[in-house]
């Protein structure tokens, strides 16, 4: 029987942020993830934006934690060697009658503590955002917006949490949560969790299960909210267009979303989207022709030179919406059970602040948080050949020849980087893609897939017929000649 002080359910950006933060303290912590790899749920379809804090409901957790998170994320990304870039955001108005709305957004944002806001005019826009449509009449400029790779952040958080003693279990879907009452001298609630046929005992449970947060909450006997999946289709443009924009571009927000954006990503490729469509199926990840049309026309309104021919990839994500705000609270009905649900935008931005908030809730619920004597706060930056100057690459290659062995040519990923990703926990092609960008370029794996499969097969000791795209059931090939 595995026994812990805290078990976190869900290894997305919220779960791993909480795990890493808690790993500062003398606690036994486990992180349970139902998929084969971390960040395979909501976090992988994230836009990668660190929001400045505008457009959040008044007096909301979203507002408070977003502004806090914007600052904290910078510190964490530095500590963990994940690239963070402050690029700034523009919320753009095209019509005179929209100007009061823009001013209102600014005013509300000021109350939340968003720094350095200013309204800018066409002359500023022309100088700083030359490809922006000439029909834009004004914009709210929020310089503190930034970009980060959402899954590389998750992996960095997880690796740091592991280093600091957190135990991570993948392919462990939680199927039962029983409150088994106080136990012995240790006052405090006790839970028994069933996952993948194994029993786990813990004093506290943190439910960060994304799309399934309502189901997990109900397992613990708390049925106070429902997760409404809201679909978002996003379209990725060729890296050649990296300098199409200098800032993140937002239109004025709609009722249920920030609108269709022109996004700079940490990988260099611009991205357009997302749509916002409520749907019933938590597994519906299909893109559509209608989605493409909608995104393209909205994006072209801001940047007229974007064409369909620029699109090299697309994906769909489902936002786990639970009303207007985050649901982060200790549930009186199930003492020791803390819900961290409805973590949609600005969830990525707020994650670091959510972690601190949850630590606070744990303290108030009676958990003693004593700092460890040794906490490894820093991790070395993962090496990506595509983001370092060639001269530095030369030195790396001399020391380690496998850095010169290029596997993915579109994104310039070497065999060493692939092997490092596998050593860091990648077990699937998608896992390698999210960590290294191999297969994410313009040829979409046509060139490198074979080699990556072979490296993975050799490293984890599985036959090629068992190598998967994203876990069991997604095997890449069905038969091997000569090895029937």
């Amino acid at each position, binding site marked *: 029987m595995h026994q812990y002080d805290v078990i976190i359910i869900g290894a997305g950006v919220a779960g791993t942020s909480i795990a890493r933060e808690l790993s500062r303290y003398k606690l036994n912590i486990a992180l349970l993830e139902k998929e084969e790899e971390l960040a395979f749920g909501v976090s992988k379809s994230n836009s990668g934006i660190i929001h400045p804090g505008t457009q959040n409901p008044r007096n909301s957790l979203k507002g408070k934690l977003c502004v806090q998170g914007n600052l904290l994320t910078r510190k964490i990304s530095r500590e963990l060697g994940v690239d963070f870039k402050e690029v700034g955001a523009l919320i753009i108005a095209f019509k005179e009658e929209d100007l009061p709305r823009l001013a209102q957004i600014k005013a509300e944002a000021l109350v939340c503590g968003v720094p350095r806001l200013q309204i800018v005019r066409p002359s500023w826009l022309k100088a700083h955002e030359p490809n922006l449509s000439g029909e834009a009449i004004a914009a709210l400029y929020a310089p503190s917006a930034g970009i980060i790779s959402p899954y590389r952040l998750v992996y960095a958080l997880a690796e740091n949490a592991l280093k600091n003693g957190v135990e991570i279990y993948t392919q462990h879907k939680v199927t039962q949560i029983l409150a088994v009452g106080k136990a012995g001298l240790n006052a405090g609630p006790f839970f028994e969790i069933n996952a993948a046929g194994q029993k786990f005992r813990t004093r506290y449970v943190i439910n960060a299960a994304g799309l399934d947060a309502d189901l997990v909450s109900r397992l613990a006997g708390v049925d106070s909210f429902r997760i409404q999946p809201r679909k978002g289709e996003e379209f990725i443009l060729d890296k*050649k267009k990296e300098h199409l924009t200098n800032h993140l571009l937002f239109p004025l927000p709609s009722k249920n979303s920030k609108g269709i954006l022109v996004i700079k990503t940490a990988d260099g490729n611009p991205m357009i989207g997302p749509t916002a469509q409520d749907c019933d199926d938590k597994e519906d*990840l299909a*893109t559509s022709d209608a989605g*493409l049309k909608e995104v393209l026309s909205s994006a072209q309104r801001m940047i007229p030179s974007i064409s369909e021919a620029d699109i090299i990839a697309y994906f769909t994500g489902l936002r786990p919406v639970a009303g207007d705000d985050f649901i982060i609270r200790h549930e009186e009905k199930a003492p020791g059970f803390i819900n961290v649900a409805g973590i949609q935008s600005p969830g990525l931005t707020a994650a670091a602040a959510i972690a601190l908030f949850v630590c606070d809730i744990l303290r108030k619920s009676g958990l003693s948080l004593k700092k460890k004597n040794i906490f490894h706060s820093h991790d070395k930056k993962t090496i990506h050949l595509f983001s370092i100057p*060639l001269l530095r690459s030369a030195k790396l290659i001399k020391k380690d020849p496998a850095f010169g062995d290029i596997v993915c040519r579109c994104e310039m990923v070497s065999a060493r980087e692939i092997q490092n990703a596998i050593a860091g926990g990648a077990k699937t092609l998608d896992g390698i893609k999210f960590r290294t960008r191999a297969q994410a370029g*313009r*040829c979409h794996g*046509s060139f490198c897939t074979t080699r990556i499969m072979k490296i993975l097969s050799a490293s984890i000791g599985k036959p090629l017929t068992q190598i998967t795209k994203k876990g069991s059931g997604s095997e890449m*090939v069905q038969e091997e000649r000569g090895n029937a």
Partner: protein
Amino acid sequence: MLKKDLVIVGGGPAGMAAAISANKFGVKDILLLERDQYLGGILNQCVHTGFGLDYFKEVLTGPEYAQRFISEIRRNPEIEISLRSFVVDLTQDKVITFLKPGLLQRVKAKALIMATGCREKTREMVHIAGTRPAGVFSAGLAQKLINIEGLLPGKKVVIVGSGDIGLIMARRFVLEGSEVKAVIEIQKTSRGLLRNMVQCIDDFRIPMFYRHKIAKIYGNKRVEKVSVVKVDDDLQTIPGSEFQIECDTVLVSVGLIPENELIEMAGVQIDKKTNCPVSEELNKTSIPGIFVCGNSFKVYDIVDVVSRDSEIAGELAAVYLNKR
């Protein structure tokens, strides 16, 4: 920094023919860079016949055709070969940077021939809606998996696109024991050679659907089925025409794109629509001394023509270097 008279990027049929030709016309200092561990390029995975009918007056498979050139190059000490060499940077004054295991090397070339071939258009570029499960392959990747690795991608296949690569792969899958349930083609007729229609489709009675396209791919982990619709002459979906085909593999064979990102990096003028270099004269580009041959110059149907085109590029390079 290394200095070479002529650097050729790409050791497939185009690059090899260009190297041999340039040498024949007097260039004695040639470096041939190839990213794979063998010469031969795409021919290594084209195990079917149909090559060399014109150039050698013989019926050859891809590897056999390639070997004719490989043998000649290996005998020639004036053509230096560097395998597993991947070019990462190219400047307009012909400074090439390439990586290979253990080495980053910069080379200043007096003349440069690019023979980098093509990549395939992906499913994303033609926006086939639906999910992104395992089981969606470009035809070339499927060909590599089967012919180089002996791996069978799937057992129930739907092929999108009736160009030669799609047709060849239809036959390949059938020979390996898979069922090819349909070839879906948006145009009114096949885009491939008639002889391939006979030997790949008619021979195995594979259902062809012209003026059709795939509307959606289904399946979360692995492909489960596709929905297919009929289109009119404006390529718009005809309502009510949808039907579904159960399958575990979708092969996408919808066109080739010349790989010219390197010369684009160097500032060579590229036609935005075709990704081919803008050119007044065969094989020349907007930068004197930088030549392009083979499929990266323009997409050819037959490798025999590629060989002849590349020989011209080799000669042009020799003229440019004042060797001819």
